[in-house]
């Protein structure tokens, strides 16, 4: 699982300094993130791990401009996100990020091609260009022949691959995946993670995966561990242990078909 792109040689894409996120519930303040400092370079495959309510998804939402930090500075490609309008943030979400969700979130009334084409609609790509881009994205995830089907005609793993195709159709710099294998069996989960890994290895995309499963985190180059909203560990995967390097090794066929988590 060696990377084709060497992250260390790439420019810093995401830089966070002293990021915190508070939620206000009446008089109570719930601190979801506290003093987060990290930098992510282009082409890295990052795993964000931690127990439930440790702030993983909040951090991912802030990175993806879906949420704003209460304090601290978040720079994307050298540009401070603070003060950007909703329209500008929407443009960033559309052009810079591709989102993959645990619950997949394909629209059931649209066929696969239309689902994948959604981000193109919002970036004003002309209709006649969309078809080729959608085909290319579906081809990348190996589902080019299923473009006319509807989500409920696909397996969970195939649906998540469609979601990956949707995430990369706009050729974003960063793929953000929040528990992408959370609802999949182990075989499908493995296949989805291999697709994400391929995006990083073959296309040089930056991939950030939130998970609480060490086997999923094993696909990353670097692992950020969160606990109670703070980073407790941020180091290359090589330093974390052999178990994470090859997470699916040792599972027999029966286990592979069982629950991934």
């Amino acid at each position, binding site marked *: 699982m060696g990377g084709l792109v060497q992250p260390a040689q790439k420019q810093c894409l995401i830089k966070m300094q002293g990021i915190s996120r508070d939620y206000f519930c009446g008089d109570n303040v719930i601190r979801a993130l506290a003093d987060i400092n990290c930098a992510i370079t282009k082409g890295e495959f990052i795993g964000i791990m931690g127990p439930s309510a440790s702030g993983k998804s909040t951090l991912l939402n802030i990175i993806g401009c879906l949420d704003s930090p209460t304090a601290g500075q978040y720079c994307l490609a050298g540009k401070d996100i603070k003060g950007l309008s909703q329209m500008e943030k929407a443009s960033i979400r559309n052009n810079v990020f591709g989102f993959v969700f645990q619950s997949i979130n394909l629209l059931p009334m649209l066929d696969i091609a239309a689902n994948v084409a959604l981000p193109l609609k919002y*970036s004003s790509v002309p209709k006649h260009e969309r078809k080729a881009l959608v085909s290319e994205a579906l081809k990348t995830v190996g589902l080019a022949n299923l473009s006319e089907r509807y989500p409920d005609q696909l397996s969970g793993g195939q649906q998540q691959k469609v979601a990956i195709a949707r995430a990369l159709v706009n050729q974003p710099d960063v793929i953000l995946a929040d528990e992408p294998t959370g609802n999949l069996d182990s075989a499908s989960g493995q296949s989805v993670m291999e697709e994400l890994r391929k995006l990083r290895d073959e296309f040089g995309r930056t991939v950030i995966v939130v998970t609480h499963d060490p086997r999923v985190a094993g696909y990353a180059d670097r692992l950020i561990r969160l606990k109670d909203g703070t980073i407790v560990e941020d180091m290359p995967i090589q330093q974390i242990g052999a178990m994470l390097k090859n997470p699916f090794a040792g599972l027999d066929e029966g286990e592979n078909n069982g629950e991934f988590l």
Partner: protein
Amino acid sequence: MENFYKRLLIIGIAIGVFCSLAVFTVGQRLWTTTMLQRKLLESNICKIICSSELLSNSHMSLSYARQIQGLLPEGIKSDLKGLSLGDAHISFKGEPLPINLVLGTDVNMAELVGLQLINGRYFDPEDVAEHKKVCVLKSNVYDLIAARNAAHIDINGVAYEIVGIVSESENYDKSLGEGDVLVPVSTLYKHIENTSDRSELISQIVFDKQAYSNQQIQHLLQKNARKEGVEISDLKLMPLHYDEFRRNEAYLKEMSKVVGIALLILVIACFNIIYIATASIMDREREIGLHTALGAKHYHICRLIAREVFSCAFRGGLLGTATAAIFNTASNLSSGRFSFSFNVISLMAGLLLATAAGLLTSLFPAAKAAKLDPIAALREE
């Protein structure tokens, strides 16, 4: 949008359009009737009836009616309306015609009540003075016998020469009633009823008051009656179209109720549309959150919602207009005439109304949808 909400929305808008078209149609009739009321009130044509109660008419004799005519100010044009007592047998070459009422008038009636002369002439003083057996037919009666070049009809077995054909003009006086055969009033007395001038066949004296007010006419009548020693205490002076005016008033009341109910339903339908559109959005928060996460801007979300509501509104408009057309046609049928009530204007009005209502009512839910927090919307349930 889910099919359930789409159907609800289409039905809601269809009801709204149906009610709006009902309001529009009834409103149009109300407007026409109101204008007619004004016209009726502004008319110079009046009538004098003999009545102890306003609407319970009793009749006058010909000699008494002529005395009253003589009491009217000089230069005022007047006429009499006499009614045959029983059913007259009216036929053409032995074939009965579907009418049995004969009206008697003097020479001015056509001019006073606005009957349009299509052919021939109305009665002249000679017809009245000599009790001539002549008649004037209304065009709908003449149409029955025109093909046979009719020059005479028979009333009670006696031939009457057809001297004129009249039609009902826009201002036609419905107070002339159903009588479709007119004869000189003297002829009505002498040949048809075979009775004396003291028989009470005259139902009203019609006159054009010109520049006089009703009060002035009443005052002059009383003054002249005292001078001539004529009793006029049972006479009533009123606009010629008074009965029609009263009928219209009752109609206006009924129609106002219909408009009120339709407006109420319309308001309820509008709130329903907003409620359904909002509920449908709340039901698909997740989808809207996804669109936002994928880069949809506020106007993309607004456009998405507006387009869906617009599409439902268009279909609702078609349904509402079609229902209104069917309802109107059925209502025409129930009143005994078939008239397919559908035209491009009502279709356009219905569609315009539906789409405008759809767009207006989708503004609020669309704005609400655009403001949804994508994180909350996408959060795993």
